[in-house]
C-alpha cells in the first residue's frame, strides 16, 4: 500500500494581465510517495485551481517540457519524486528565463540560440540516395553519443549563473549540441558552427562553474563539451596564427 500524506505545494504565480509581479500561492495536496511533483501540479490543476499554468507532456523525462525550479534547484517535474522532499515543496518557473505566466517561461531566446549553431548534420559531401547510407563505426558513434541524449529541457540554462548574468551567452545546451555534430564523423559543418560557438558570446563566456552538468537529467555533461570546445578552438587559433600553412 502506498503511503498517503499531505504536502504544502507553494507555487510562484504570475498573471501578466492582472499582476505587476509574481506572488506565491500555497496548495494543500494529498499525495502518495510514488508521485512526482508534476503529479501534484496536475492534482492542483484538476481539483483545486484550473487557472494554474505549467508545461508538461510525456511524464517520462523524454520531452523536456516540465522543467521547474523545485526548492530552488532546476529539476524535471516528472523526475522529482515527492518522497525525496519534506512536506513543503516550492515550485517556481525555471530561473533566468522571463515568466510568461505562472510556471510557463518565455523560451524564444533558447530556441534562437539553439538554431544558430546549426544542430543538424551537414554532410561533408552530398551523395545521391543510390550511393547508400553514411556509415559509421560504433567507436565513431561513441565519440558523441552522450550529447545526443539532450532533451532541450533548459535545466542547464537555469543552473548556469553565467547565462543569468550575461543573457547574450549562447549557453550550455546549444554549444553541446554544436559539439555533438562537430564530433560526428559524417559531419562537415564545423567551420560554419565555429563562427558562432567560438565567438565571445559563445564558449568563452563559460567560466566552468559546472552547474549545467550537475543538474542535467540525462547526464549529457554540457560542461565537459564546452571545455572540449575551448581546447579545440584554442588549437584552431594557434594553428591559424603560428602555422597558417596548415589551414585547409
Amino acid at each position: 500500500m502506498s503511503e498517503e500524506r499531505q504536502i504544502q505545494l507553494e507555487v510562484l504565480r504570475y498573471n501578466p494581465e492582472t499582476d505587476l509581479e509574481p506572488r506565491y500561492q500555497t496548495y494543500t495536496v494529498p499525495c502518495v510517495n510514488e508521485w512526482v511533483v508534476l503529479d501534484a501540479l496536475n492534482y492542483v490543476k484538476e481539483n483545486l485551481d484550473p487557472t494554474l499554468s505549467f508545461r508538461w507532456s510525456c511524464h517520462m523525462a523524454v520531452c523536456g517540457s516540465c522543467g521547474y525550479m523545485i526548492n530552488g534547484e532546476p529539476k524535471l517535474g516528472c523526475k522529482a519524486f515527492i518522497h525525496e522532499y519534506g512536506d513543503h515543496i516550492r515550485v517556481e518557473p525555471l530561473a533566468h528565463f522571463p515568466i510568461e505566466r505562472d510556471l510557463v517561461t518565455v523560451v524564444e531566446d533558447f530556441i534562437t540560440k539553439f538554431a544558430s549553431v546549426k544542430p543538424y548534420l551537414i554532410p561533408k559531401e552530398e551523395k545521391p540516395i543510390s550511393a547508400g547510407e553514411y556509415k559509421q563505426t560504433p567507436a565513431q558513434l561513441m565519440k558523441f553519443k552522450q550529447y545526443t541524449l539532450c532533451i532541450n529541457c533548459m535545466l542547464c540554462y537555469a543552473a548556469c549563473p553565467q547565462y543569468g548574468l550575461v543573457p547574450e551567452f549562447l549557453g550550455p545546451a546549444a554549444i553541446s549540441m554544436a559539439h555533438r555534430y562537430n564530433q560526428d564523423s559524417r559531419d562537415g559543418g564545423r567551420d560554419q558552427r565555429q563562427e558562432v560557438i567560438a565567438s565571445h558570446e559563445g564558449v568563452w563566456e563559460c567560466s566552468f562553474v559546472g552547474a549545467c552538468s550537475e543538474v542535467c537529467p540525462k547526464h549529457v555533461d554540457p560542461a565537459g563539451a564546452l571545455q572540449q570546445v575551448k581546447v579545440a578552438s584554442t588549437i584552431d587559433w594557434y594553428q591559424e596564427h603560428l602555422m597558417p600553412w596548415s589551414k585547409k
Partner: protein
Amino acid sequence: MSSKPYIREVPKTSWFFRQPRYMRYMAREVTSFFIGAFTLLLVVGLKRLAEGPEAFQSFLDALRGPLGVLFCVAALVAAIYHSTSWFNVTPQAMPIQRGEEFVPGKMIVGAHYAIWAVVSLIVLIMGI
C-alpha cells in the same frame, strides 16, 4: 509570447550565495588571487636578488616573519585547493577514447596527481 513577460533580475554581486555549488565555484576562483599574489612575491624576490645579497637577505628575513609564514601557508592551502579542484574536472575537458570505451575518469585524475607528486618531489630534491 505574452505582452508583459516578467523578468527576474539576477543580483550582480551576490548571486553566488544562492547555491552551495556556486560558492564552491567562487572558492576555486578566489584561490587564484593567492596564486597571483605568490607569483608577484616571486618577482619581487627576483628583483631583490638582482639588487644584491643584502637586499635578498632582508627579503628572506621578511618571509620568515610571522606575516610571511602566514601568507605562504595560506597561499599553499589555496594552491592545493585550486590545483585539486582543476585536476578533478580534467576527465570532462580531456576525455580519452580507446576504441568504443572511454578511459575511466579516475585514471586521468590519478595521472595528474601522480605527475604532480613526481614534479613536487624533483623540485624538493633540487631545493635541498
